[in-house]
């Protein structure tokens, strides 16, 4: 039985095997490092002593989990060790995996049940994390599942962002609602939602401009977009996905805090996991904000977006 790495992959899907392979490959780079470290730690530590635990804490920090999260995990493991519940490295590994998974899973919000189409998904995040690319891939993802989708080019700020999204729309056969560069993002959102409502489109994916969470004015704009959406569809946006670059360090926490404040983030998309970055900041964010990771981006292709599975993520992170 093949352990599905990242969640509900359709067994009949002819692509499932290749996706699986690609995910393995993508995550293995992440894995190598932490796994390697961990093996070193575990090899040394026949008995789980303080040095081993401290080394482990440092290893978690090296994966961008952050000091607070790493300390908490280590403290929990220390408690277990004191009560002699950890006898060897294998047990420590299993326990560590469970800890990470439990953090990723706490208070996971169930996806909203949409009463009537369209479901509105807003993509937010700082500059350069991959919002436009993810929007395009997400549209393709829904299309592949037989849903109708509409892209809304609400990044009217960055040069050629609209053209970029348009190419993605063409690739996945999804129509896009646009305005000119420099136009009002709320206005184009309004148009897109009107159109989607009339056409009974299943999903509207809203690509917003990248903005640093410290820019108060730009953050207020997101709030305004939310209110605009609510005027047309009362319970919209149903999902607000924070697109987070897996290379992001501890600043990711601040991003999650402030974007949640202004835009009501409901979940995270972890992008660029095909690099060497570990994306450990997602664990730190889940710990503080109880935000689930919804998708993982693993490449520049149309199908390089996968639903996220915390068990698999935690496991693959620790596999040697």
């Amino acid at each position, binding site marked *: 039985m093949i352990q599905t790495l990242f969640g509900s992959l359709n067994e009949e899907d002819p692509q499932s095997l290749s996706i699986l392979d690609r995910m393995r490959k993508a995550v293995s780079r992440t894995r190598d490092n932490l796994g390697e470290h961990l093996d070193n730690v575990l090899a040394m530590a026949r008995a789980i002593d303080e040095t081993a635990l401290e080394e482990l804490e440092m290893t978690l920090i090296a994966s961008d989990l952050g000091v607070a999260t790493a300390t908490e995990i280590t403290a929990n493991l220390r408690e277990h060790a004191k009560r002699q519940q950890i006898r060897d490295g294998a047990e420590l590994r299993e326990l560590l995996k469970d800890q990470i998974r439990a953090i990723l899973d706490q208070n996971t919000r169930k996806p909203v049940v949409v009463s009537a189409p369209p479901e509105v998904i807003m993509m937010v995040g700082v500059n350069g994390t991959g919002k436009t690319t993810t929007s395009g891939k997400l549209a393709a993802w829904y299309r592949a599942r037989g849903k109708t989708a509409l892209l809304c080019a609400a990044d009217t700020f960055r040069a050629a962002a609209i*053209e970029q999204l348009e190419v993605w729309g063409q690739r996945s056969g999804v129509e896009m609602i646009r305005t000119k560069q420099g136009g009002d993002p709320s206005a184009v959102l309004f148009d897109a939602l009107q159109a989607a409502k009339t056409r009974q489109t299943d999903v509207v994916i809203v690509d917003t401009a990248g903005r640093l969470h410290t820019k108060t004015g730009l953050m207020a704009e997101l709030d305004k977009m939310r209110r605009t959406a609510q005027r047309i569809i009362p319970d919209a946006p149903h999902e607000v996905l924070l697109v987070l670059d897996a290379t992001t360090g*501890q600043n990711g926490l601040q991003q999650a805090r402030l974007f949640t404040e202004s835009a009501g983030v409901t979940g995270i998309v972890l992008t660029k996991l095909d690099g*060497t970055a570990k994306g450990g900041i997602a664990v730190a964010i889940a710990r503080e904000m109880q935000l689930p990771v919804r998708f993982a981006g693993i490449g520049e292709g149309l199908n390089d977006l996968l639903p996220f599975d915390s068990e698999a993520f935690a496991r693959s992170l620790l596999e040697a």
Partner: protein
Amino acid sequence: MFENLSEKLQRAFKNLRGQGSLTEENMQEALREIRVALLEADVNLNVVKELVEHIRARALGQEVMTSLSPTEQVIKIVRDELVTILGKDTARFQFASRPPTVILMAGLQGSGKTTTAGKLAAWLQKGGHRPMLVSVDVYRPAAREQLRVVAQSIKANIYEGDTKSETAGTALVERLAREARREAVITGCDTLIVDTAGRLHIDSELMDEIAKLKALLSPQEILFVADAMTGQDAVRSAEAFHQRLALTGTVLTKMDGDARGGAALSIRHVTGQPVKFMGTGEKPDAFEPFHPDRVVGRILGMGDIMSLIERAEDKLDKRKSEEFARKALSGDGFSLEDFRDQLRQIKKLGSMESILKMLPSVGPFAGMQQMAGQVDEKQFNRVEAIINSMTPKERNHHEIISGSRRKRIAAGSGTTVQEVNQLLRQYAQMRKMFKGIGKGGLLQRRAMGMLTGMKGR
């Protein structure tokens, strides 16, 4: 928010007051705090280990000076160490003896290469150069279009070329680069900035491509564009790019956010090359030479007062400020008209929140950073609205503002009489405070009180 390093050290040293020297024992907790602070700022783990070792060696055996507290002493060592690593040799550019000078931009996806290419062109233009831009990113949708729009906005030359529906690949990339250089020579451009596609350092195909591009163009500068928010992985990507390309420097982008920017230390450490520039905003001129001391301040959580001062110098009308100071300190005092001018000037510096965040969280400004989240920006607008609703005579002679005038002003500005009263009270206090400024020490306390008054209602 983060507790900064010096607060932590103060805790670590609370039992150490001018007794003897810094020893292994009394340093242990301090070193741990330093390590945590650096890690929280995203400095790479291995770099941190090495740094802490250096700091330990330098700190041990030092006499605890009477002039400096142990905390200050250790902070100084840490600061010096970090500034030394980051170096002073920033923003120095290698120009070719025979133009055009070629600058190759390299980096991961989304680090900001295209935006930076545009900013660099604008910076060179300001310095009297004639740069030409070219994008050889034939992979990302609309990437070349993006650079075209950027070039247009700063009125820089760009070689657009023609992809002639040729398949995206190294051959096309090389052709565009060759043509662009020829074009630069013909049109008399002295620099050529080559914007490349973002690539993962483990993508051997694309890394081969950029190595070929380097061989083809023999660029004078190969700049690694890196996101200031990057975490522990920064060393791995920077090292891989450096091994392949022999980088000449780094541009740290998105420094206008609140990232600590520890990646700067990591990248400098593994490449040995200076961070030359930093990107500080979305506008084409939000680009400046890298200042090691400031980034060190940020990494240690000690604010960035230099940037604040520079911003002030850049945006404020010096003549008006001086006139205000003269009036405020002299017998006449300043009028509400002057006060409004000052408010408008402050608003030019950015949000109150961003200003407060730049203040160091120790010393005279202690506690101000923490207030940043509580300041109600709209309060400034309300104050301005109130003054706007006064007649010129009222603005210059506040004493004539009677009860009925107050009612009119409140109605005109959409506020309440209480708010008008509050403003007039604060204004009167400030006038008095400025006049008595010679007595010293008072200003800062009062200014704090004022800010507390500005908190949200």
